[in-house]
């Protein structure tokens, strides 16, 4: 049977990769995913997460019915209830007593109606988004410099550049497909220089000619130093500065006032002066420079200034919107850009219009035919949840995001939500840390059922198309918003019949009075405002602006050197280096840095459904430099507690010299669903950038101490387990089984009985047991004939055997007699290889397999490894690790 290919877009990072999906079995939700070779973002490539999307579209864990206070209810009742409650609270306490907290996971159409409802009709600006946590400093940087939130360049610029500066971004893990394009560009043009600026050695350094291990938070000093250097070395584009920019003199003066001495700057940045100078020289010499930046820049109390410090250097050299030359913010989420376009942040109006322009306000009020349009910016995310805590906000509707995990000071904000009189959550997942706190749960469609558009980092609008009809009673987010809006009394404004209908209005608003007479705005979809339903369905990936007549310049902005400021000139912004808000001290002597890992997305609600994505880094962990580990008596692979003034965290220790001394790194993904105390958000200081309101998630003072438990254990079970509380617990789904890593402080009298109780094993005949009571060791497996049900390994020491081989036995229908004997050794019988820790997720290739192949077959390059084992030939995100293993194996010979 010929299968129809459905073109859609990946729901993870901001690269916005095109996907060709085919449906293998509609009822069983089985699909095959391939990269779309025609999509300009990825040209057929996909990363490990995107490739594993087929594992995430089952109905497992889906929220499929509306619920009010734990009771399943029908949609009309749920919608009426929310509308009445909201209206009631607004009547009693005013419009600012309600709020929406939305998400870069929403489609543009969903986002548009949510913003329209809150700002346009409820009349409050209390709608903020999780993009506040990742992109708002970048928005502020662009707006201050260009008068609009506009990314000037496009992805081709990465291939056209002669110098790539990757700063505050581990794009190898966070934007893997774009990183593959960079890798290929480097292969094809060895003259391309790449500088990675990051306090950590990350996999992105794999392609770097120069790595600057910057002191955390010193970015402004680094780029101010660069501006000085360019000025002193006469490397400025004087013509560009004079003709198209304003504010240069004050800006360079501000930079000079900090320091003009390279050695001082190097010291402030924690860098070697030669490396610093080399970077400055390369920047000075290469006209085609793209600076790529992301959360390492944005998530800071001086995030906006960091962005402008970067943009200042690009303006000073005229490198904006030119082929191979731009300051390029990489967005974290699939539709962070779409959210910005519809004005889904408390600080902006719709369609890139602003509160501080009265004409914008009037224009939108006219277009929406409302008299109730909010006139003041609302509360940004952190302030918004603080207002919930204070009781100022009495009803909050959270859509498609998990703030109990992702907010800073997350335990505090969790308590705020627990106290909030009305929490409405619309989500596709039934049990998230946030959904659990909801009074009203509204089932939303998931990625494979959604229909609408998203905008990626290079302003490219792509369609997400449904692969399946909506499951259960799930509904599109736009439908839920519109139905509640209608019930709140706004029938006229929300009478949309489809996503296409909404998109047309969104495009029309962007086009509305967007001309020389009324003032030009960057965001303009004039050419899409009258799409038919069929044309919308067929819409190919399109970069904005989309004017009535296609122009040759639309793939880059500002090629005409005309900006969206009143004088149409770009603005230099004088900025000064400031230390992070909270500095380390005796009580909290270490800096906590947070970030993503390669194979997980956000709060793991979807990626953790995929066994192969779970095996690369299966537990919440802490990276620490060997020197610090020694100072604080922290041992590799043991457990450690990290505490800040705001909360605490418990995770597995990874000692690595890739980490700077004095700094720790903890991944952002783990939730209370998957771990006992693995939510890093609980640690993060709730301090924000004064301009963007973005939290300083990359810098929190913390301390670390070793965690001693009485018993350490793991359980691998074919079925999910209900376990009592453990001090440490981390669970992942593997192939055909679930793996629980556990530790408990309270000593157990009889570990045999305890182990048997934990596995609920009553039939002795089903057991295989190993017992070393003097060492506190008990291991047990239960089997049904030769089919393994579960196993438990208990010790009084954290160094438990590896789960790698044991968990593979669960994917066998029956284990072999030989395996019964070695089962509890957790090591395979001879001739049955242990693959080791999974390195390549696409082909599930483990470290041991790779090392053995390198040794036995004398492999000398990643290409040879790929040829021999397929590792690295899928998405390519493991190539840096393959290089590392190759180097280590060759060195050890």
């Amino acid at each position, binding site marked *: 049977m010929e299968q129809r290919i459905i073109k859609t877009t990946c729901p993870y990072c901001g690269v916005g990769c095109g996907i060709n999906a085919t449906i293998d079995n509609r009822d069983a939700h089985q699909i095959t995913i391939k990269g779309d070779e025609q999509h300009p973002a990825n040209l057929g490539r996909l990363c490990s997460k995107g490739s594993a999307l087929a594992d995430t579209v089952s109905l497992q864990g889906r929220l499929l019915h509306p619920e009010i206070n734990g009771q399943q209810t029908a949609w009309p009742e749920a919608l009426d209830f929310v509308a009445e409650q909201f209206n009631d609270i607004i009547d009693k306490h005013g419009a600012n007593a309600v709020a929406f907290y939305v998400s870069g996971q929403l489609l543009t159409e969903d986002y548009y109606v949510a913003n329209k409802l809150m700002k346009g009709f409820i009349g409050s600006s209390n709608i903020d988004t999780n993009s506040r946590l990742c992109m708002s400093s970048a928005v502020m940087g662009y707006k201050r410099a260009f008068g609009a939130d506009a990314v000037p360049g496009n992805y081709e610029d990465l291939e056209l550049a002669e110098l790539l500066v990757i700063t505050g971004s581990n794009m190898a893990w966070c934007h893997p497909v774009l990183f593959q394009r960079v890798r290929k560009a480097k292969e094809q043009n060895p003259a391309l220089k790449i500088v990675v600026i990051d306090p950590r050695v990350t996999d992105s350094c794999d392609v770097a000619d120069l790595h600057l291990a910057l002191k955390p938070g010193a970015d402004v000093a680094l780029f101010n130093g660069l501006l000085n250097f360019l000025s002193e070395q006469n490397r400025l584009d004087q013509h560009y500065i004079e003709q198209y920019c304003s504010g240069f003199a004050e800006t360079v003066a501000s930079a000079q006032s900090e320091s003009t001495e390279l050695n001082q700057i190097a010291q402030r940045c924690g860098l070697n002066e030669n490396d610093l100078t080399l970077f400055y020289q390369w920047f000075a010499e290469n006209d085609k420079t793209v600076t790529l930046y992301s959360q390492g820049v944005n998530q800071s109390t001086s995030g906006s200034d960091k962005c402008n410090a970067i943009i200042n250097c690009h303006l000073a050299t005229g490198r904006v919107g030119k082929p191979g030359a731009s300051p390029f913010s990489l967005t974290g989420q699939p539709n962070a850009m779409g959210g910005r376009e519809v004005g889904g942040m408390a600080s902006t109006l719709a369609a890139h219009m602003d509160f501080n322009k009265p004409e914008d306000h009037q224009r939108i009020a006219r277009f929406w035919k409302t008299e109730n349009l909010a006139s003041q910016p609302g509360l940004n995310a952190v302030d918004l949840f603080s207002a919930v805590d204070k009781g100022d906000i009495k009803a909050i509707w959270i859509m498609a995001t998990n703030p109990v995990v992702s907010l800073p000071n997350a335990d505090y904000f969790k308590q705020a939500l627990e106290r909030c009189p009305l929490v409405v959550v619309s989500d596709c997942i039934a049990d998230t840390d946030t959904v659990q706190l909801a009074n009203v749960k509204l089932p939303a469609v998931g990625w494979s059922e959604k229909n609408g558009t998203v905008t990626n980092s290079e302003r490219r609008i792509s369609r997400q198309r449904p692969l399946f009809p909506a499951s259960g009673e799930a509904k599109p987010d736009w439908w839920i918003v519109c139905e509640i809006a209608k019930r709140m009394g706004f029938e006229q404004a929300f009478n949309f019949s489809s996503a296409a209908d909404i998109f047309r209005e969104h495009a029309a608003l962007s086009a509305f009075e967007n001309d020389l007479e009324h003032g030009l705005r960057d965001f303009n979809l004039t050419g899409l405002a009258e799409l038919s339903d069929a044309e919308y369905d067929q819409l190919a990936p399109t970069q904005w602006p989309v004017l009535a007549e296609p122009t040759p310049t639309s793939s880059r902005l500002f090629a005409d050197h005309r900006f969206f400021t009143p004088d149409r000139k770009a603005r230099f912004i004088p900025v000064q280096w400031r230390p992070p808000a909270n500095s380390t001290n005796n009580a909290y002597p270490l800096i906590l840095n947070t970030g993503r890992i390669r194979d997980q997305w956000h709060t793991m609600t979807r990626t953790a459904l995929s066994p192969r994505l779970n095996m690369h880094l299966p537990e919440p962990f802490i990276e620490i430099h060997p020197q610090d580990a020694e100072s604080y008596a922290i041992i590799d692979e043991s457990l450690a507690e990290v505490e800040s003034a705001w909360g605490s965290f418990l995770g597995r220790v990874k000692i690595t010299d890739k980490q700077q001394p004095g700094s720790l790194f903890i991944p952002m993904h783990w939730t209370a669903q998957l771990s006992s105390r693995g939510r890093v958000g609980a640690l993060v200081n709730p301090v924000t950038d004064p301009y963007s309101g973005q939290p300083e998630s990359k810098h929190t003072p913390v301390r670390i101490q070793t965690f001693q438990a009485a018993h350490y254990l793991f359980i691998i079970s074919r079925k999910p387990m209900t376990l009592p509380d453990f001090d440490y617990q981390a669970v992942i789904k593997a192939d055909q089984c679930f793996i629980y890593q556990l530790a408990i402080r309270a000593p157990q009298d009889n570990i045999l009985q305890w182990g048997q109780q934990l596995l609920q094993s009553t039939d002795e005949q*089903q057991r295989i047991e190993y017992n070393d009571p*003097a060492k506190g060791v008990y291991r047990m497996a239960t089997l049904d004939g030769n089919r393994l049900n579960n196993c438990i390994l208990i010790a009084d020491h954290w160094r438990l055997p590896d789960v790698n081989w044991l968990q593979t036995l669960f994917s066998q229908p029956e284990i072999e007699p030989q395996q019964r004997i070695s089962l*509890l050794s957790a090591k395979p019988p001879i001739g049955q290889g242990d693959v080791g820790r999974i390195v390549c997720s696409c082909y599930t290739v483990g470290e041991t397999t790779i090392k053995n192949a390198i040794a036995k077959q004398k492999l000398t390059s990643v290409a040879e490894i790929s040829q021999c084992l397929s590792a690295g030939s899928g998405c390519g995100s493991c190539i840096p690790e393959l290089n590392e293993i190759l180097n280590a194996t060759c060195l050890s010979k």
Partner: protein
Amino acid sequence: MKETLLVIGNGMAGMHAVEELLRIAPDEYNIIVFGAEPYGNYNRIMLTPVLYGAKQIDEIMIHDFDWYKKNNITLYCGQDKMITAIDTQARTVTTADADKISYDRLLIATGSRSLILPIPGHAVEGVMGFRDIADVEKMIRKAETHHHAVVLGGGLLGLEAANGLSQRGMEVTVVNRSRHILNKQLDKTAGDMLQSELQQKNIAFRLGLSIKEINHHDGHVNAVTLDDNSRLAADILVMATGIVPNTKLAEQAGIECDRGILVDHAMLTSDPRIYAVGECVQHGRELFGLVAPVYQQAKVCAENLAEHGRARFKTSIHSTVLKVSGIDLFSMGELQSGQDSETLTHIDHHQRLYRKLVLKNNKLIGIIMYGNTRDIAWYQQLLLKQTDIADIRDQLIFGKPETLAA
């Protein structure tokens, strides 16, 4: 003129010594052998398969009459030629039919006999040991006409007798004073596993009990009464409660004896011309019932007879390799954990596989393997060499590390 080596006892120990001697010094002696049983040398261990019918007597012969002929050994066997006295002064032995034969060297290998406990009624017909071909033939005859057998003693010999009689169609009950069977070789866990295995073969067990009285009718056993006053029907009662070294001959000749005939490291008795090997000897405080140390004694004895000199017998830590009812068993050293020892156990209940390792100061001092005896040589070496196992403790019970991937 060759010296004469006279061997009393035509069993496994004596003949192994002769065989070794022929191998290393074929022309040293003129050899004369006396045996009380009317056969060549047979493998006593193989009496069980004969009992349950898997083998015929000629199949368990180690040395048939031809072998003696070929090797110029003079063999006298049967009751007539049973030795009744040794004159150590005259260096002669006397046979039942009053023959006197001289020797230059004498090797006593009179073996042992079943211990028949003096329970009231023990002297009646049907109460027997399990020791030789005659016993086996008697059991086979009984099984053809009778149903009820009781075996006293849950040791190796008792279980083999029980198993054999059961296969011959008798209803067998094993009575054992210890709470678990095979208590010299196994701990309770392994003993219980073996017990349930044997129960599935219709062998019954009464453990923790002794026989108080042997009931009889017409001079023949017909039941036994246990400590708890319960009665078991018994057409035959096999006593498998131990063995008694045959020392009477040596004692009467004035050779020093204790429980067995006392020998030194060269297997020499108190008389410098007389050696002794096998189940009749006592070395230090130890008696012997298993074939491995007995063969070791035979070898040492042969080397000394051949005047090769230096070989010395050293008792080593007992290890037992057994096959009971198709199940491989191995045990060695200390089987119970004491105050300063630690145990590792591994058990697969369904497959009835069990291992126990007893450790002291990170060294192996005891091993039980039930059902799977892979890597026993490795474990034996670890125990004998007292290797420090601290680094491999976690993997120890799962077998030799090389059999597991790194």
